[in-house]
Structures are given as structure tokens and as C-alpha cells.
């Protein structure tokens, strides 16, 4: 079964080629079958491979498949080779499964769009690239997928390109992630020149042999890779592109900007854990950046009016949790949170899409309200996902995954009480902002009118994801519930287990209790503030300091403003200054001469026949004179 792994990325790629070549001539039903069907088949094969891998694991818990030699030049080789271990398997199954549900949802969501086949072509290309990223056995192939998903993200953010604002958002996303990607490319050059290979497993082995822990080279290489991960995963200081990326269609936000692509940075760090373990300062930076990001984005999410922007800041914040987990060495906790986050966050986006579609493209949460009776399925599934995101105790998946991170932030040898406190404060913020959204959108007075109700192909993904957003947590049930840490047991075949601090005070159960209380308190506070005592919040919002603070957090702590002043404007001024250099004058001179000749010649085009005849005579005389006398 495992040798069919090459089919998993190939099927969506084939779908992309079919749709790109003949998609515009196919009827919509055929486009939907190709677009969703190829990804569905790919999801089915991934799950069969997953089952085969778990029931009958390959030796040493990895399976690699070299398809063909890609580059073989002067000692450097890179193969088109797939590498499947527990980490890649988890990513592959989650990506294909969530992608299939979102494709299914899109077949109805996008049905009235003129670019139906273009949409599915881009989406299929995205899935193929993402799978290449996840399954690539060497960093070059991973980088190919990495850039492929970046391209698809650009194409899909700017999908409705007739509005210039969407194009600007797409370019912003592309350029900001490109800053990280450039650093990552430099990191790859560093690794290949120092270690002579890009094959991930060989690389990590050689790095461990050649480099001391904490020496300069692994720190530089890990820091450069981290920069790439920060750009892709929208972490501080490169997080500004993600809220604007919500300009794309909602299924795109669900798939690319919530569930899969933005977690590529988490995957990269987990995949290169051997290198990062050689660079403890960089790992500390990962944890600190994660903690800072989850707080910054959490506060911003609290102030947004646009439903998708709330979810975008929430995504940044949740990926901050994953970085925090990676930074404290809790690799499996990060991957566990990646899995649950992919499920409940894509569900939140799909629910938001159903609301937006029903209300005729209304994004403002204060123009919604009282939707729980009109959209019952959307309401219940959204509620489940919100509870999971907020970490509602015991029943939701998000509780278990977030809790594992918080516990590791406290108990790991790399953890600290500060990181734990930041995570707990973030959990409190999460509960408030997501239930602010729930209470504003689904409760209260009814605003606006319904355009149309979502159909079956929208409801099926919602319900499936809602079920999973609850039960997915039980694969890693904590000890006091009598569960076995089955998930981390499986993941630790590929990732090292966290190193416990020798002096741990408190037990996991106690911390789980604290996290549960915090989540419930946050939900309760949101209930009081946004449903019972609405007026108090409004009065606070109207006071001068309240207004200023709300404005500041609404624009995402002013990072856009800062980058505009510090980077963009000086650059534009420099460009204006360098515009008239001497090289430019040469080209300007050529253009000037051409314009001069053009005016001279066009002034002879008078329409007077006799002048033309005289011109011909003059020319003939000159030619004859040349022929005779020269």
C-alpha cells in the first residue's frame, strides 16, 4: 500500500492540468467532479496509506520512495523523492482530508462565479504543491512545494482580480512571505555548502556530527530557516499579510490561510528539529515569538468588525501556540494542535462563508445578529468549533491540544512560567474574542435579510468537521481520564519527546483544571460583556482612551503603519532619488533622438502628391549620383 504514496500529490496535479487545459470548455458539473474528485481520491489513498502505516509499520517507522533523479551535478544530487514518516503522514492525511471537504464545500459556494474552473485549477495546484512540501524528502523539493503554495496563495487571494484592493492584498502577501523565503533560500545555500546535501535525514545526521550544540553555523542556518517559517506562518514580525489575505474567497481562507499553508512553517521547524536542537538560542526565539504573537494577535482579534479578520487574527494567534510548543521542544504537542486547529479553524471559516453567502456578502459582524434560528446547522457547527478554539473543557479537541502546549510550556526543561502565563492569557483572550463573535452574530437582534440558505454540499463538510473538532482530541486523552497518549506515542517515532524539567512543580491534572477554568471564565465574561451588558462595552468604546485603544488594536498594533514609514516610504524616496542616474540618461537620450527623427519624418507626410513626386525624383537623383560617381 505504501508504494502508492506517489499518487497522493500526482492526482491533484493531474486535476490541475486537466482543468487548466480544457477547464473553460467543460460544464460546471464536470469541473466540480475533476476538482473535488481528484482531491477526494487522494484523501482516500492517504487514509488507506495511513491505516497501512499504523497496522503494519515499515522498518524504522519511515518509508521513502525515490521517483527519479532531479539534479545530479558535480557532487550535488537532489532526487524527486518522497519521505513518509509519522510527521509527514499526519500532515498528508490532514491536508488531503480537509482539502477534500473544502473542495466539496466550494462546489456549491463558488457555483455562481465566472471563474469556476479557474478556481478549482488553482485549488488543485495548491493541494499538489502542499503535498510536495509535506512529502518532499529533501529541502529542495520541500522548497519547490513551499514556493508553489506561495504562488497559489497569491493567485487565490487575488482571485477576484477586477477589484484593485484584492490585487494589492495578493501582492502584499506575496512580497511579505518572499522576505522570509529569501532568508530561507540563503539558509539552504548555507546548509548545502557546509554539509553538501539537502536530503533532510542525511543533513540532520551530518549536522549533529559536524556541529557543536550552540555554535555559530547551526544558529545561523536555523535562524534563516526560522525567518522563512515566520513569513509563511504569519508570525511576528511578518504577520501583517494574513489579515489582508482575507480578500480571497472564503474556502481559500479556510484551506490555505487557516488549515494548511500557514502551518507550513510549523512543519518546517518540526521537520528540521535536529538542526534546531543544535541551536538553543533560536529555539528560545521560536518560543518567545510564538508567545508574543499569540498575545498580539489575540488582542487584535478582539477589536475586529470583519468576521473573516477576527478569524485571521485568531489563526495567527493559534499558530503562535504551535510556535510556542516547538520552542519549548514539545514537537508532538505542536503537531497535535496543528491537527485540531486545522479541523476547527477550517470549520469556523466554512461557517463564516455560509453566513457571508446567506447575507449577500456581508462581512460586518455588527450587521449580523440573531442568526441562530435562520441558520441552525451553521450555528451549531460554528458553536462547536468556537468551543473547541476556546478550549471548552473535557469535550472539545482544542482543550486537549492547547492544554498539552500549556503543560509543556511549564514543565519542559526549555519552558518557563512566563511562557506558560502568556499562553494562559492568550487562552483567556481566545475565549473572549471567539464568543464575542458567536454572541454578536448568532444572538441578539436580527439584522439584515437572508439571501439564500446553504445546501447539502455546504452542510456535509460542516457537520463532518464539527464531529471531528470534538472527537479528534481523544487520540491524546490525558491520564486522569484513563486515556493513553496514543497520538504522541505514534508521533514520537519521528519526533523526539519533550525533555521534562527536573524540578517540575504541580501535576498535569492541576494545570488542565486551571486551563479549563480560564476557558470557562473567558466564555462567561464574553457572555456578560457582549450579550448582557452590551451598553457597558459601548460606553467604554466611546470614551477617549477606549476609542484610541480600540483603533490601535483594530489596525493590528500599527505594524502596517510602522512598516510603511520605516521601510516602504524610504524605499520609494530612494527610488525617486536614484531615478535620474547617468545610465538612465543614456536610455533617455536614445528615446529623445528617436522622438526627434519621428517628428522630422512625420512633418513630411503632408498629403501633397507633387511634393511626394519631388521627393521620389530627389531620391532617384541621389541614388543615380551615388551609382555613377562612387
Amino acid at each position, binding site marked *: 500500500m505504501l508504494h502508492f504514496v506517489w499518487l497522493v500529490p500526482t492526482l491533484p496535479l493531474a486535476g490541475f492540468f486537466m482543468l487548466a487545459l480544457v477547464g473553460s470548455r467543460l460544464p460546471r458539473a464536470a469541473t466540480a467532479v475533476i476538482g473535488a474528485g481528484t482531491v477526494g481520491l487522494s484523501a482516500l489513498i492517504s487514509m488507506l496509506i495511513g491505516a497501512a502505516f499504523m497496522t503494519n509499520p515499515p522498518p524504522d517507522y519511515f518509508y521513502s520512495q525515490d521517483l527519479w533523479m532531479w539534479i545530479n551535478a558535480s557532487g550535488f544530487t537532489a532526487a524527486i523523492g518522497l519521505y513518509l514518516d509519522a510527521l509527514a503522514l499526519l500532515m498528508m492525511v490532514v491536508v488531503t482530508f480537509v482539502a477534500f471537504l473544502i473542495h466539496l464545500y466550494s462546489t456549491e459556494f463558488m457555483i455562481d462565479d465566472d471563474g469556476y474552473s479557474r478556481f478549482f485549477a488553482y485549488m488543485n495546484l495548491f493541494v499538489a504543491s502542499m503535498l510536495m512540501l509535506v512529502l518532499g524528502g529533501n529541502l529542495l523539493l520541500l522548497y519547490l512545494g513551499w514556493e508553489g503554495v506561495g504562488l497559489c496563495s497569491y493567485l487565490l487571494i487575488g482571485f477576484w482580480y477586477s477589484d484593485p484592493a484584492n490585487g494589492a492584498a495578493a501582492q502584499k502577501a506575496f512580497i511579505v512571505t518572499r522576505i522570509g523565503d529569501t532568508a530561507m533560500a540563503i539558509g539552504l545555500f548555507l546548509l548545502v555548502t557546509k554539509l553538501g546535501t539537502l536530503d533532510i535525514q542525511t543533513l540532520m545526521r551530518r549536522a549533529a556530527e559536524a556541529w557543536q550544540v550552540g555554535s555559530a553555523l547551526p544558529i545561523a542556518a536555523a535562524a534563516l530557516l526560522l525567518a522563512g517559517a515566520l513569513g509563511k506562518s504569519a508570525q511576528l514580525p511578518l504577520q501583517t499579510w494574513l489579515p489582508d489575505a482575507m480578500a480571497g474567497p472564503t474556502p481559500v481562507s479556510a484551506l490555505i490561510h487557516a488549515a494548511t499553508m500557514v502551518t507550513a512553517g510549523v512543519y518546517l521547524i518540526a521537520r528540521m528539529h535536529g538542526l534546531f536542537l543544535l541551536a538553543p538560542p533560536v529555539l528560545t526565539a521560536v518560543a518567545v515569538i510564538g508567545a508574543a504573537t499569540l498575545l498580539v494577535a489575540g488582542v487584535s482579534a478582539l477589536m475586529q468588525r470583519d468576521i473573516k479578520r477576527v478569524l485571521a487574527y485568531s489563526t495567527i494567534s493559534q499558530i503562535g501556540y504551535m510556535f510556542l510548543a516547538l520552542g519549548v521542544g514539545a514537537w508532538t504537542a505542536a503537531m497535535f494542535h496543528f491537527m485540531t486547529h486545522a479541523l476547527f479553524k477550517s470549520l469556523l471559516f466554512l461557517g463564516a462563508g455560509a453566513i457571508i453567502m446567506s447575507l449577500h456578502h456581508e462581512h460586518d459582524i455588527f450587521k449580523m445578529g440573531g442568526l441562530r434560528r435562520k441558520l441552525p446547522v451553521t450555528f451549531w457547527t460554528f458553536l462547536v468549533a468556537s468551543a473547541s478554539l476556546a478550549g471548552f473543557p473535557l469535550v472539545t479537541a482544542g482543550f486537549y491540544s492547547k492544554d498539552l502546549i500549556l503543560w509543556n510550556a511549564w514543565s519542559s526543561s526549555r519552558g518557563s512560567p512566563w511562557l506558560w502565563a502568556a499562553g494562559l492569557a492568550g487562552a483567556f483572550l481566545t475565549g473572549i474574542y471567539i464568543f464575542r463573535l458567536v454572541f454578536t452574530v448568532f444572538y441578539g437582534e436580527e439584522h439584515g435579510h437572508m439571501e439564500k440558505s446553504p445546501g447539502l454540499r455546504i452542510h456535509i463538510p460542516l457537520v463532518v468537521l464539527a464531529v471531528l473538532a470534538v472527537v479528534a482530541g481523544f487520540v491524546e486523552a490525558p491520564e486522569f481520564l484513563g486515556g493513553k497518549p496514543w497520538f504522541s506515542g505514534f508521533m514520537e517515532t519521528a519526533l523526539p519527546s519533550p525533555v521534562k524539567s527536573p524540578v517540575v512543580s504541580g501535576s498535569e491534572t492541576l494545570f488542565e483544571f486551571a486551563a479549563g477554568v480560564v476557558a470557562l471564565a473567558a466564555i462567561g465574561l464574553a457572555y456578560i460583556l457582549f450579550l448582557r451588558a452590551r451598553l457597558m462595552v459601548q460606553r467604554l468604546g466611546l470614551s477617549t482612551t477606549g476609542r484610541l485603544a480600540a483603533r490601535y488594536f483594530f489596525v493590528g498594533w500599527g505594524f502596517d503603519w510602522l512598516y510603511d514609514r520605516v521601510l516602504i516610504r524610504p524605499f520609494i524616496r530612494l527610488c525617486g532619488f536614484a531615478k535620474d542616474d547617468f545610465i538612465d540618461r543614456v536610455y533617455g537620450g536614445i528615446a529623445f533622438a528617436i522622438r526627434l527623427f519621428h517628428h522630422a519624418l512625420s512633418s513630411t507626410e503632408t*498629403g501633397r502628391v507633387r511634393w511626394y513626386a519631388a521627393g521620389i525624383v530627389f531620391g532617384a537623383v541621389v541614388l543615380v549620383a551615388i551609382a555613377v560617381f562612387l
Partner: protein
Amino acid sequence: MNVAAIPMPYGLMLATVLFALGLVGVLVRRNVVFVLMSIEVMLNAAGLAFVTAGSRWSQADGQVMFLMILATAGAEVSVGLALVLQLYRHFRTLDVDSASNMRG
């Protein structure tokens, strides 16, 4: 053959004079009919030069070329006169200078 009694320079000189007359006619005349007639004169001057050269070397080529020039001139005149008629209908004048619609 007493045709050869006329020396070639005389024939060529006559052709040159005819050509110059025709050329001056094309350049100075504004009436389009006279322009066409002047072009005929220039064509015939060229034909005379061919015939003269043909007789100098006793070759038939010059006369063959003259026949071709006659045919070309006939074709040219038929098209030219048709254009003259259209010109007159459109502009109500035969003045080539005032028939220009171009600016600049």
C-alpha cells in the same frame, strides 16, 4: 538599314529632354489630367531610350521592352483616369493640391 544613321547620343538626348519635360510637368502642373499626360510623356521618353539602345546594338530587346511599356502605360491610364473621375466627383475639382485631406 538607315535607321542606324541616327547616332545613339541624339536619340538619348531626345529621350532625356522628353523625360525632363514630363518630370517638370508632373512637378509644376496642378491639374491632375495634365499630371497624367506628363507621366505618359515620361514613359514614352523611357521607351525611346530603350528603342534607341536596341537599334544601336541591333537587338530586338529594346522594342520588346517598349511594347511592355505601352501595355503598362495603357493599364496605368485606365486606372489613372478612373481615379481622376472619382477625384472629380468627390472634390469637384481637378486640383491635386486642394484634394489633400491631411493635416500637417
